[in-house]
Structures are given as structure tokens and as C-alpha cells.
């Protein structure tokens, strides 16, 4: 269902809801995957992002998102100049991603401390985004909800354990999806929640033996 607030909004720095606001949100999700401003970021631009991204400020918007600026933050305009002071070394390249991707797509590889993540995200128009891949796993994240990203050993009962913790901590699940690259390897769990996961839930899920990675990312839209 379309909300009228999806139509009248977002409040954003111009010039393009898809090339600027959406790009910033993809940057915010990539930031969330390493828990803060990355020290290093490689941003690969695909399709229309590669062709007209510079004139639309797509590069500045993604850099701003990586630094935690929201789509309506006027600092987006100067984000590339501010990156140095924020400790972010960022490089851009044009690319042709393999497979079927929306014309406005970017692959962002970020490193913070010992943590690295690679995120592929598309900007669908009107500022809406869809993260389609994290570290090679197919995912679907809209950024409209707080999200819990978990990589865990693929074994029976793990979904019940995680959702059991969420239930006992009164974290309501809006949508969930589990996918894996191969049977018996690791699987990625995406839980979209009504509110950010509580500290207790984060701690208890992280403590589960099968869980290898946990990222709690707030909504970006």
C-alpha cells in the first residue's frame, strides 16, 4: 500500500530522489553493516548511476550516507570534502555488474577495523531503495524498517532460537527471510522489525553458538 507520506516526501537534498536521496540511503545501510563510519570504502557505480551519477551528486550522497548523514542533511553537498576529517578514504569506479540489476545500482565495499562488508543496493525511484545482496547472499531490505542482519551456521532450529529471543524481548518481526549459498554452510537471516532490536536481544542472539555475525541497523527511510 502506498502512503500519502511516501508521495509528499521525503524532505531531501536535491537534485534527484533516486540518484541522491536513494543513494544516500544505500550508503547508510552499508555504514550499518560495519557499525559506523568506515575507514575505507570502494563504491562501484552501475548503469545510470555510472552515467549521470556525478552530475546528480550520487557520489556525494553515498559518501554522506557512509558518514551517517541523512538524505535531508545539507552537508551531503560537501561530503567529499568532509570525508578526510571523518577518517573515511573513499574511491569510486564505474562498473557493469553481472546479472539482472536495476539501472540505478551500486556495489559498496566498506571496511571498519577488522570488519568488512559488501552491499549491493538499487535506488528504485522516489527515494525508495532495495538492498539485493550482502556479502554474496541474496537479500531484500527496503530500509523502511529497523533490520537485524544475522549470518549463522545453517542448522535445524536456528530460526526458532533467534525468533524465540526476539519474542521474549518483545521485538515484533514485520518480515523475515533466510537464504543461503549452500546447504549446511552459512545462512543469512534478515529480520525487519517494528522497532530497533533491544540491547538484550542483540546480546542474547550474538551469544548463540551458531551465530557468526550480527548487525542491527536502524531504519533509513
Amino acid at each position, binding site marked *: 500500500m502506498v502512503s500519502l507520506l511516501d508521495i509528499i516526501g521525503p524532505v531531501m537534498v536535491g*537534485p534527484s530522489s533516486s540518484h541522491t536521496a536513494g543513494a544516500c540511503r544505500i550508503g547508510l545501510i552499508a555504514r550499518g553493516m560495519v557499525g559506523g563510519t568506515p575507514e575505507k570504502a570502494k563504491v562501484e557505480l552501475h548503469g*545510470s548511476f555510472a552515467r549521470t551519477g556525478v552530475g546528480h551528486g550520487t557520489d556525494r550522497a553515498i559518501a554522506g550516507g557512509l558518514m551517517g548523514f541523512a538524505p535531508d542533511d545539507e552537508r551531503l553537498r560537501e561530503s567529499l570534502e568532509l570525508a578526510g576529517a571523518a577518517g573515511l578514504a573513499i574511491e569510486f569506479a564505474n562498473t557493469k555488474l553481472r546479472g539482472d540489476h536495476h539501472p540505478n545500482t551500486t556495489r559498496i565495499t566498506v571496511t571498519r577495523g577488522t570488519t568488512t562488508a559488501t552491499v549491493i543496493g538499487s535506488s528504485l*525511484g522516489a527515494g525508495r531503495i532495495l538492498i539485493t545482496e550482502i556479502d554474496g547472499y541474496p537479500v531484500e531490505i527496503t530500509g523502511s524498517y529497523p533490520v537485524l542482519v544475522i549470518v549463522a551456521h545453517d542448522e535445524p532450529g536456528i530460526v526458532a532460537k533467534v525468533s524465540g529471543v526476539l519474542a521474549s524481548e518483545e521485538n515484533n518481526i514485520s518480515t523475515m527471510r533466510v537464504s543461503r549459498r549452500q546447504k549446511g554452510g552459512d545462512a543469512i537471516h534478515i529480520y525487519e522489525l517494528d522497532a530497533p532490536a533491544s540491547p538484550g536481544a542483540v546480546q542474547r542472539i550474538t551469544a548463540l553458538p551458531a551465530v557468526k555475525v550480527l548487525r542491527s541497523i536502524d531504519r533509513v527511510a
Partner: protein
Amino acid sequence: MYDALADAVERADADGISLGELALRTEAEAGLKTRAEIEATLQRALDVMRSAIQRGDRGDLRSVSGLVGGDAAKLRAPKGPLGGTLFTDVLAGALAVQEVNAAMGVIVAAPTAGGAGVLPGVLLGLGARNQLDDPTLIRGLAVAGLVGAVVAVRASLSGAEGGCQAETGAAAGMAAAAGVEVLGGTPEQIAHAVALTMQGTLGLVCDPLGGLVEVPCVYRNATGGAIALAGIEMALAGVRFPIPVDEVIDTMGEIGRTMDVRYRETAGGGLAATPTGRKLAKERLVELKGRRK
């Protein structure tokens, strides 16, 4: 929200409320936000629209490529036959917001950034001329959102999918609806205003120079505002468009789906592909790439 404007009109009439009030009630009933939160969000949108117009009116902005800027201010001291009327207020407001947008300033996407000038141009132009209060203007924004939501479901709000008829065309339809609402028109008059406006933007292509939201986007927001004024004027005079509004919206969607890809934001056709369009885009983009390094 509704997926047919006719259903919304019927419901508003049955409940004896305006279409803007229906939009606010329907949004609150969806349960994502309370009525107070919805109104606060729309108030902020209104405030940002006002600031954007004030910023653009100063006339000192240049776009990222340098191709546009400074034209809104010219319309504040107009020399033409309609100078100093609501008409030039609407043109100036639409240009101002789009100039701010092109300069990476803060605007409200309504429905998109590329079409963001039309609604504030029309709504705030009417608001200033008629001394309308903010709660009234917020009902205008709500009804514009309702119309946009119907267009999103039945057709498209993306230039890459449906051409400019889906961006400034949809924005003009939304602005016409808002205008009739705040001037006290009936739900049925709103439906006719949207139909009369959007029939005038059917087939409009998206052909921006270099793919940038600058030329002709900035100017097309102003002409979109002019078409919305025509729709408002006709609808309030009692003109009825013979094709129902939902079918006009469907037609926009159908034209968009069959529109050649050159005319859908790719800069492959239209004004973007003219000799001057290509030359300007090439010069400006080369310059921009140089600046990033």
C-alpha cells in the same frame, strides 16, 4: 490509500467531508502514524517548501553543472501581460524550488525531486494570494498525496518508467487537486481538475540534457504549474472532463509503458539529443568529472 480516485470521491461524499479530510483519515486508519504525526510531517513539508521558495527567490543559486539558476527572481519582477498575478507567482515558485533542487539544496520530493516545484508553486501561490492558513494548506498537501498514491498504483511516478508525464504531469495533477481543495471545491470538482490537468500532460517525454535534473526539468515545473492552474480554473467553473479521471491516469500509464526508452530519462532523445543539448551535456559533464579528481 485508494487505488481509484472515483472510490475516494464517493466515500468523501458519503461521509460529507472534503477529499483532503478523507486523505488524512485514511492515512491515520492505516495505523503507521497517528493523525497528529501525519499532520506534523506535512507541516514540516510545508515549511521546507516555503524555505525553498524563499531561497530560490534570492536569485544567486547555480546548479551543479552551472546550466540553470537565477530565473525565479526574474519572475518576481515580471514584464509580461500576466505580471504580478497569481500566474507569475506560480511560475516563480515552481522555478525557485527547482533551482534549489538543482543546486543540491533541501526540497520536498512531491512526488519526486524532478517534479518538486509544481505543488509548492501552485499551493503556496494560492495560499499567499488568498491568505489561507496552514491547516488548510495541509489538507491541500494531503489531497495531493492521495492523488499521487492513486497515480503510483495505476500508472507510475518515475520518469525512467513513464516519461515526464509521470513526474511533472503527475505533480501537476496533484497540484490541481490541492488547489481545488484549498479553494473549497467539491471532491468531484477535484477529480475533474486532475483529469483536465493530466490530459494536458499526456505523452510528455523525459529528455533531460546529460540525464541531469536541470534542463528542461526546471522550466517544465513552471509550465506544469501553468497547466495545473488551467485545470483548477476550468474545474471550479464547472467544466467536466468526459473521460473519468482514473481512465486518464490509466492512459498515462499505458503511454508510459509503450514510450520509447530514448524518452525515459536516458538522455537518448528529445531535447537531450539536439545538437546543442549534446554539446552542453558533454562540456558540463567533462568539467564535472574533472572536478571530482
